[in-house]
């Protein structure tokens, strides 16, 4: 419950404060957001599976974000940044879909 509130508060703060993304972070923020969403859906799924662990969630969240950003950074350095970020988005999107599908099966038995 508290994390859900945190999400809403974060959204509200982001919408009302109009923060500007630093130029150096601009390529990494969207990928990091996707990775964090993947972690969040994975966490919800783990809760429903009964295998949720706070520590695992925190670590997976942080590692997802860092790894995704690092992959994009590496791609930028190698000159394939846009392709690699597309690839990361595809992979994370597939994972999010599978997580959401699992959550749906748990909640709606369908």
């Amino acid at each position, binding site marked *: 419950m508290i994390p859900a509130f945190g999400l809403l508060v*974060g959204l509200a703060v982001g919408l009302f404060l109009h923060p500007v993304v630093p130029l150096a972070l601009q390529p990494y923020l969207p990928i990091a957001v996707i990775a964090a*969403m993947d972690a969040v859906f994975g966490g919800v799924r783990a809760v429903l599976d009964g295998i949720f662990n*706070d520590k695992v969630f925190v670590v997976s969240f942080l590692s997802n974000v860092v790894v995704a950003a690092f992959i994009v950074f590496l791609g930028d350095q190698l000159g394939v940044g846009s392709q690699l970020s597309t690839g990361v988005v595809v992979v994370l999107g597939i994972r999010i879909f599978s997580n959401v599908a699992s959550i749906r099966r*748990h909640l709606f038995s369908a």
Partner: protein
Amino acid sequence: MSQDKPAAGSSSRERLLLMARPRATKANLFAALLALLLGFAMATQVRQNQSLGLESLRQSELVNILDNTTLLSSRLDQNARDLQATRDQLVSGGTSGAAALRAAQERLDALRILAGTARARGPGIRMRISDPGDKVTAPLLLDSIQELRDAGAEAIQVNNIRIVADSHFNLGASGIEIDGRTVAQPYSITAIGDPATMSSAMEIPGGLSENLRQLGASITINQAKDLTVGALHALSAPRYARPVPPPATSAP
């Protein structure tokens, strides 16, 4: 695990509710902090993406925009150059027009003074010749006018007759006539020019004054700083002479 569907659904909902209860563990707070960061990042990214113009466009679209901008820029550059050239032309045209007007005015003034259609004013001398014995002839008077011209007189009048290029002197029934009008004694000659030069030309030994005095006439010469030649000459249009157009020195 999803085989026993109703049981799994209810138990997982229970687990979700269990999880949803506020627990003040360190990990839960940390997760909340992460969620807050995620929400903040999402909102920021969405806003950023909406405010972005060009970053989200494809390469071909960017190339198109760049082309359009370059074209527009070159067109505006051309426009600016044209307008600049027009402006330069107008500015120089304005000054040259004013200069031409000034030159034309100066020329007109000079010609009007020369032709005797304008009053002239300036330094000069005033001569007064009284000739009780009627010894001063028309050629002598003409000589005096010629002497004044040699000395640089620019405008001359005798009594109230302006002396111009076509003035003629002759001896009439009642005395000397200039342009057909009788000149009464004493002859009063006003000449505008350098006063010192003209008076010394008149007083030169063997010159006009001496000749006149030898004939028994008396002559007085006064230099003045500001004289007015007020008589005007009525200009008549030439009947036979026609101007020859000047040779075209500058091709149009």
